[in-house]
């Protein structure tokens, strides 16, 4: 009972993700990932979560991906890295992981298709309800998430600092 919008978005998401995982150039991959994320945002919207869709666009596609892009640009990897990637990604390397993952996918599909819930329409959950839940029963988790982000910031700062001496003293020589 899903409309064509869903199928189109889903198709874009899947194709874009396939493109992500097959690119040699990191930049291309990132851009495809942004596309994939945007498509997922549409799907999210279709599932009655407009607030989440917005978050997906703003935070995921907008912030996180952009952070990655800037990072890659900062490392200035260029052509060589793409060549390297090409050398590493020989066809036969794909075989076993793909088979394994397909098995996993098969199992997932099997499990999902065993859904015996009565078919129900998509229920829209408005952002207010999300906000009430966040600051109601999930209060503690929100606080913890805040701490996690804080730790992330501190950690990133600490790790990202360029030090004169980067080796641990045990690793010297």
């Amino acid at each position, binding site marked *: 009972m899903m409309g064509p919008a869903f199928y189109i978005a889903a198709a874009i998401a899947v194709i874009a993700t396939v493109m992500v995982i097959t690119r040699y150039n990191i930049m291309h991959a990132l851009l495809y990932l942004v596309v994939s994320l945007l498509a997922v945002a549409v799907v999210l919207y279709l599932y009655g979560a407009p607030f989440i869709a917005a978050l997906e666009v703003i935070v995921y596609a907008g912030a996180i991906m952009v952070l990655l892009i800037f990072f890659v640009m900062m490392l200035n990897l260029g052509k060589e890295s793409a060549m390297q990637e090409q050398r590493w990604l020989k066809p036969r390397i794909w075989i076993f*992981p793909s088979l*394994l*993952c397909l*098995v*996993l996918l098969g*199992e*997932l599909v*099997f*499990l999902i298709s*065993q859904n015996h819930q009565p078919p129900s329409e998509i229920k829209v959950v408005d952002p207010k309800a999300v906000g009430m839940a966040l600051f109601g029963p999930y209060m503690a988790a929100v606080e913890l998430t805040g701490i996690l982000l804080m730790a992330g910031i501190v950690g990133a700062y600490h790790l990202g600092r360029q030090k004169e001496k980067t080796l641990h003293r045990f690793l010297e020589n």
Partner: protein
Amino acid sequence: MLPALIPIIPFISAFLLMLGWKRLSRIAVAVLGCGSIGLAAMVAVITAIQFAGNSEQAIVQHAASWVLAGTFQAGIDFRLDALSVVFVLVITVVGFLIHVYAAGYMHDDPDYARFFACMNLFVGAMLTLVMADNLLLLYFGWEGVGLCSYLLIGFWYKDPANGYAARKAFIVTRVGDTAMAIGLFMLFQYTGTLNIPDILGKSPQLWTTGAPVVTTIALLLLGGAVGKSAQLPLQTWLPDAMAGPTPVSALIHAATMVTAGVYLVARMHVLFELAPLAETTTAVIGAITLVLAGFSALVQTDIKRVLAYSTISQIGYMFLALGCGAWSAAIFHFVTHAFFKALLFMAAGAVIVALHHEQRMTKMGGLRKLLPGVYGVFLVGCASLAAIPFVTAGFYSKDQIIWLSLSATHGHVALWLAALLGALLTGMYTFRMFFLVFYGEAKTAVHHRPGKSMMIPLYILAVLSTIAGFIELPHTMGHVTLFSNWLHPVLPAVTVINDSNAMEWTSQAMSALLAIGGIGLAYAWVVLRPKGMSDFLEMPAIDWLRKYWARGWDFDYVYNILLVHPYIHLSRMNRKDLVDKLYTGLAALMEWCHNVLARTQSGLLRWYIMAVVLGAVAVLSVLIWRIYI
């Protein structure tokens, strides 16, 4: 006089000799070693005279308490009755003579003190054995003499062969001791005591004649006796035991220790009377042993081995007598045998020393002129051993056994025939040895004549070997029963069926004729050497038979193949302990697992993820399988 003193004196002297092994001079050692036995002999004689006044009543002395555990009780209690008095007298008197002889014989040995310490220890242990009032103390003496036998056979320890002989003696007798120990456990289980008089008193009430339990017990005790007395099938140690110094062979392996089995059976005669099967077994073992050992003695070349096999054979006679219920006859033969066999051993020792430690008879000969003293006593000994009628002690004791093996209640014609065959063999091997040593031409120079201390004991024993027979004469010839009367309070008289003078005369005549015939054969074989005889002896079959007998009927070979070699090989194979392999194997498995798992920790991120995925697939598969299939 206290009976306990008799065994204690040798023990004390042994202890002193051990303490003073370095400080005591040779003379002091000899005085202490011989003096203690002499003292013990004096005490024994005095005690025996006292005892003779009232020989119905045994003297029991409680020296000390020993073990008291639960219901089990055993003390260090000594008992003198008619039987033990006989043994004590023989042990101390013959022991003393042998000690005196040994003082001369061992004079040049550097370990003089050790020798006498062991000898005294032996006499003490042997006296304890025969004077013990309970079987535990008897067992103490029993093992004690085994130890001394071990120490003295291996006295010249530098030669590994002596050590081997010593170990063999100890282990083989220990096999018999094991049977005996089990017999003791059974006795204790049923009678609740190991006190000999109590056991003998209780057993007729406990068991009917032929009851399986008492038969088993008697057979187990017989096992112990067989081991100690070198009877079939545990006789193999005795010929090898000749590795010890000659006085040791005379004292331990001829006169005293090897007759401990005879003592044991006689002492426990009540049990054997209740178990006819055991009695028959005893008689059969004795008969077979005396014949087999006789054949072996016939073909030995080593003078001491001849005597060793002859000892086995003579003890076979004693067992035969015991098995026929002729208790006092067995003991009588023990007494005479102790005299003449000690005499023969010591005389042989004198010859050996004279010929510079030459034991092979093929190297001897013509000593009649060179060693006339030894020749005389040796002749007396041989005559007694071969049982030359009327003048020798051996005749009276052996003749009694031969006659009783036919006429006693447990007697049998087959036993009698075996005994007669034994008489023939005895005459033959004894005089073969005698002629080989003293006749013919001299092959080795005499370098050392026996001194007085060696010869005097020989003369005394020669006298004893002659006159000792007259204390018990068959009733066809004077009917003197001093000895059996003496033993009567302890050992019941033999019951004789089909008793007739004519038959007894026949038996005596036959045994005498056979003995003399044997001597004649030996004379022909060794001295005359007719052509036909030497041809006969060189036939391959006969030659093979000779070698076979010389090897002691291959008992050693069979035991080696069946028991000794498998045990040694099995234990050598398992030297590293198979069970340990279980644990080292477990450790190796753990180490292998560790290595395998350690390899998975490669540090390669992709492998880790792969493992996670595999895990996820596995978990989901299990989930699906459990829920949906």
